[in-house]
């Protein structure tokens, strides 16, 4: 069941940018975090430019903390996070879809974000992992590790051993 909210072309374009490594783009310029929100007229989902992060903005230390600081704690957001982690077999980089709907956000926005999620994900084929953030306790590295496959699969996340 959907809410009928439209997905802007900008979102689809940015999804391709974060998903596929473009030839000719420098490593630092690639998108690390793409944040999306509801437009002011509440009719479509657009890119929240102020909160997006490129690889060069993030650096090598405290990566997850920087990522989480860009996801507001009092408003709802969607995000795509290009997570790099080390599994038993190899180094991996996978996209994690994040739905952030904090308890303190308004009931109406929680309702809209939750019911529009399916439509948004339909425009992003190939997503493997999803992370639902509702409370401060969800904003923890252990939750993300669980979504990626648990402690057995993930050996280290963004350079920090699990």
């Amino acid at each position, binding site marked *: 069941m959907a*809410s009928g909210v439209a997905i802007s072309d900008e979102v689809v374009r940015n999804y391709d940018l974060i998903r596929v490594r473009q030839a000719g783009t420098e490593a630092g310029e690639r998108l690390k975090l793409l944040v999306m929100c509801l437009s002011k007229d509440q009719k479509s989902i657009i890119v929240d430019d102020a909160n997006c992060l490129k690889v060069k903005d993030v650096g090598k230390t405290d990566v997850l903390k920087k990522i989480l600081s860009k996801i507001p704690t009092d408003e709802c957001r969607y995000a795509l996070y290009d997570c790099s982690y080390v599994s038993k077999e190899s180094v991996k980089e996978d996209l994690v879809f994040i739905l952030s709907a904090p308890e303190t956000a308004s*009931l109406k926005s929680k309702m809209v974000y939750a019911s529009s999620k399916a439509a948004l994900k339909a425009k992003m084929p190939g997503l493997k992992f999803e992370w*639902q953030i509702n409370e401060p306790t969800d904003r923890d590295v252990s939750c993300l590790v*669980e979504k990626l496959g648990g402690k057995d699969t993930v050996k280290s996340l963004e350079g920090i051993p699990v």
Partner: protein
Amino acid sequence: MGAEQEINSGRSYYIDTTALHVPRAGVELISPLKNGMIEDWNAFQAIIDHIYSKHIKSEPSLHPVLMSEAPWNSRAKREKLTELIFEHYNIPAFFLCKTAVLTAFANGRATGLVLDSGATHTTAIPVHDGYVLQQGIVKSPLAGDFITMQCRELFQEMNIDTVPPYMIASKEPVREGAPPLWTKKDKLPPVTKSWHTYMCNEVIQDFQASVLQVSDSPYDEQVAAQMPTVHYEMPSGYSTDYGAERLRIPEGLFDPSNVKGLSGNTMLGVGHVVTTSIGMCDIDIRPGLYGSVIVTGGNTLLQGFTERLNRELSQKAPPSMRLKLIACNSSIERRFSSWIGGSILASLGTFQQMWISKQEYDEGGKQSVERKCP
């Protein structure tokens, strides 16, 4: 809830809380729903007519309608409802949503286990990505009405008469535990048993809401004996303190092994209902369900319910599983979360393209509901 009367030519209905409380001769008390689905279509239609004439005060053909339905509603009933809405009421646009999905969305989640404990049943409904997983729905009849029955038995054992307010003309204050002194109203019409029972149940439900408490660990006689007592006065004036009974009665919700007539079936306890439901779902999504257990329904407002449920689930769930219970603090939100979710959805500008319009119904027939309202 409606009351109906059998007259020679047909039935007349008395609907709404104010009309319901007036004692009338020969009027039976009925509910059009059975098992959460519409059973008595005539009564249902009477209620809809009443709503339009007394509350909305407008023509049905002017406003689209969004209805919530039980997640286990049958296809035949959905189609019959769609037919009634479009053919009889000429409503311009219609949509049907499952209550559990609306509740999950209203809590900002598209995935979670909705535990709905109301009057007639307690159900666990797994919702994943906005869709109900039908194979995981688990129902138990142990809910508000069951507690009311247990309270009734308690009062019978204690020889307390649950006299409903409609019979009482006046009462005098009496000492605690002394027999009540009240005078009966004269010229009361001969009411039916079903109506009288309902009025008595209302008294019991008030007792249920104010006095009962769920023990935060499995019921223990000694612990219960030390429980602080709560004073309660019946409408008849009879008043006394209640101690161990406060914990003993709701224990049946979580541990039905001692309940008479259930043959020691423990699978119906609330904790079991939740774990069984999650257990019937794909193993990959179970962490998502345990991490979002949404508690809703009037019966969950019993003092101590959520704390006990938390304890039961943390014992029954797999050891490494992250468990989180979501329970709105506001009683309005807890009882009407699906209505709130539905009202927001229906008012969204973008939702207007999702309705089944009259035109779509004319072209596609009542089967459109299966296609457009999954």
